[in-house]
């Protein structure tokens, strides 16, 4: 297979000095500060490891090649340079050094519904959005019926999209995007949108696209999505491409190099990189009684909190979400639902949760959320992976044949016309 994307020595340097201030006044202040040997007033202290001389290296000498028909997953934690790489590949921004050569048309879907105009009808927006994504009018006309029927909103196609529910809106937007005909497709995981039925439709469509022999670049945090969609993967760490290879190797390396706090019984959450929330009170640790967990066993875990800045932590609300590989929330627990009022006053308190379940065997992602009164204190998305071991309550030999997300006990009674109850199968 021939190489269709060739990335050579790509680096992307953001000059924290030059572009950040946005006004002549700001640039003048900066120049004045430099003159006096003071620190640049606009320089952010974040991400210090990649900052050098007021420059931030988002990508550093990235090299890789993608062959025709490959579905390549790009793995890396937030800030590793995934978005920057996508932006360069989709020609939204330029690399600082290096070059990229591409064969064929390239289309990128970093977000659905870009350029939708609320006043125009669904029909008009299909044409507009399609044109923005690079389709010709003739192409859109040819696929129009397919797009509309995929979205499932035939009846409302001539209604202005501002009257749509948000679900209808994203469904139409995704449908346009899904019918793009470019040889190379760049996808962001946020593409899977809508309710869970439509989400799985999206995932199926993406799978279909990758199996069509088209070249796909797929960015995701979800290992399962990458496992199911991609034929190989690239690992980005702090702007460096540290590994290109098989999906399993990349995921193993990603986990090994401490990029994610994954499978394991106990987890220290203090040093996890967080996005901005209040963070006066944060999660300290998460300890499972069992992980991996035998099928059907109660999920039991202990949470501890850590006070960073003293404040009033009354009426706190824990939210624990257990999501499957498609990020569908399977279980959502909160003390709120049990009407348990909690005032956190002592970091030594252990919060012990026990969750009954019959989740099907597989890996689940745990999201932890913490709120005190009206302040979101901490929010750790997909921070841990809970593995449920193979098994089912029916003593059936091959669990893979059972399709349900949950495997509850069920009963079957047969009542023959001439007999009383003859058999009972559980």
């Amino acid at each position, binding site marked *: 297979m021939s190489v269709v994307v060739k990335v050579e020595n790509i680096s992307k340097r953001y000059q924290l000095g030059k*572009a950040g201030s946005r*006004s002549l006044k700001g*640039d003048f202040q900066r120049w004045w500060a430099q003159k006096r040997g003071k620190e640049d007033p606009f320089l952010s202290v974040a991400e210090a490891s990649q900052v050098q001389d007021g420059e931030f290296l988002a990508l550093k000498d990235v090299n890789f090649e993608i062959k025709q028909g490959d579905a390549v997953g790009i793995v890396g934690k937030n800030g590793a340079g995934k978005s920057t790489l996508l932006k360069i590949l989709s020609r939204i921004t330029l690399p600082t050094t290096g070059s*990229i050569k591409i*064969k064929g048309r390239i289309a990128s879907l*970093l977000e659905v519904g*870009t*350029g939708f105009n609320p006043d*125009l009808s669904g029909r008009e927006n299909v044409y507009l959005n399609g044109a923005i994504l690079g389709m010709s009018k003739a192409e859109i006309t040819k696929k129009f019926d397919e797009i509309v029927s995929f979205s499932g909103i035939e009846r409302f196609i001539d209604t202005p999209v501002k009257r749509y529910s948000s679900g209808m809106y994203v469904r139409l937007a995704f449908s346009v995007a899904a019918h793009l005909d470019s040889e190379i497709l760049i996808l962001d995981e946020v593409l899977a949108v809508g309710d869970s039925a439509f989400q799985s439709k999206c995932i199926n469509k993406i799978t279909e696209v990758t199996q069509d022999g088209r070249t796909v670049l797929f960015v995701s945090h979800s290992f399962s999505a990458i496992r199911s969609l991609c034929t190989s993967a690239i690992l980005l760490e702090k702007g460096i491409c540290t590994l*290109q290879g098989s999906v399993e190797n990349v995921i193993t390396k990603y986990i090994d190099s401490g990029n994610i706090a994954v499978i394991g019984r106990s987890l220290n959450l203090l040093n996890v990189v967080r996005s901005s929330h209040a963070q006066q009170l944060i999660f300290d640790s998460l300890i499972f009684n069992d992980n991996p967990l035998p099928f059907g066993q109660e999920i039991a875990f202990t949470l501890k909190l850590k006070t960073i800045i003293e404040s009033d932590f009354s009426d706190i609300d824990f939210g624990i979400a257990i999501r499957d590989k498609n990020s569908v929330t399977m279980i959502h627990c909160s003390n709120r639902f049990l009407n348990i009022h909690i005032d956190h006053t002592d970091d030594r308190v252990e919060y012990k949760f026990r969750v009954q379940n019959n989740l099907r065997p597989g890996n689940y992602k745990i999201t932890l959320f913490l709120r005190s009164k009206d302040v979101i204190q901490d929010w750790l998305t997909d921070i841990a992976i809970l593995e449920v071991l193979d098994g089912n309550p029916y003593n059936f030999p091959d669990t893979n044949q059972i399709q349900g997300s949950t495997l509850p006990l069920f009963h079957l009674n047969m009542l023959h016309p001439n007999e009383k109850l003859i058999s009972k199968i559980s």
Partner: protein
Amino acid sequence: MSQSSISTSHSEEPEQWDIEIKAKPSVWDIDLKELWRYRDLLAQFVRRDFVGAYKQTILGPIWHLAEPLATTLMYAFIFGSIFKMSTNGMPRILFYLPGIALWTLFSNTLLSTASTFNANAGIFGKVYFPRLIVPVNVAVNSLIAFGMQLMLFIVLIIIYLIKGTDLHITWLIIFTPFLALLTSLLALGLGMLLASITNKYRDLSKLVNVSMRLLMFATPIIYPLSKIPERYHWLIELNPMTSIVESFRYIWIGGNSSAVSVSLIVYSILFMLVVLIFGALVFNKAEKVAMDLV
């Protein structure tokens, strides 16, 4: 597979690549073929701005006429009836309207083009298409609006002719589309030059706004050039819009022909060509880094 083994696997045969993204593209790296491929997008944008802007309005695109007409009536009242400023004997409404319409075309095209990157940051940050489509779309839409205003102007001329007003319409009116296009391209060129600067320094867009208002008074819109003292003529004539406005009025309603000269029109054309080519190149270079600066 290690990283180095990938980077060293250079294939020797010359390969045909469709897209090459280079770190430092040349200023001359302007892909007009690609622009042509995206012509359907231009059509969609024009349609969106024309149709979309007037959804849920009663008068719809007629609003394109309301604004210049209201301004014309206001000017006719203030500068004509109150301050008794000269229009070289021409009916006031016919005198002010073409100047205002041409200026609206010029300033709308220029100001929208100049703010291309900041105004479209949302969409530019998500999807690639040749950014030049956006200013061209602005120009086309402004030209459509101008076309409607021109119709209004022609209707007014007919009304005045029926009333028996003495107007000197010349065969030169066939150059009207040329004058409109000249105005539009001039504004497009200047706007593209400014776009890369306002992208970096937002406060400059305020300066551009103010300058446009001042420049309007340096264009013979509310006064004929002939009423300006001779020694200041060169200053007003430096403005490439001067000859366009004066010529437009001359070919439609006659008046003082001394204000119109071929050399001044040639000056405007050359001015337009220089800013348009230079503007397109600068814009094309700026668009590639614009999203880092927004």
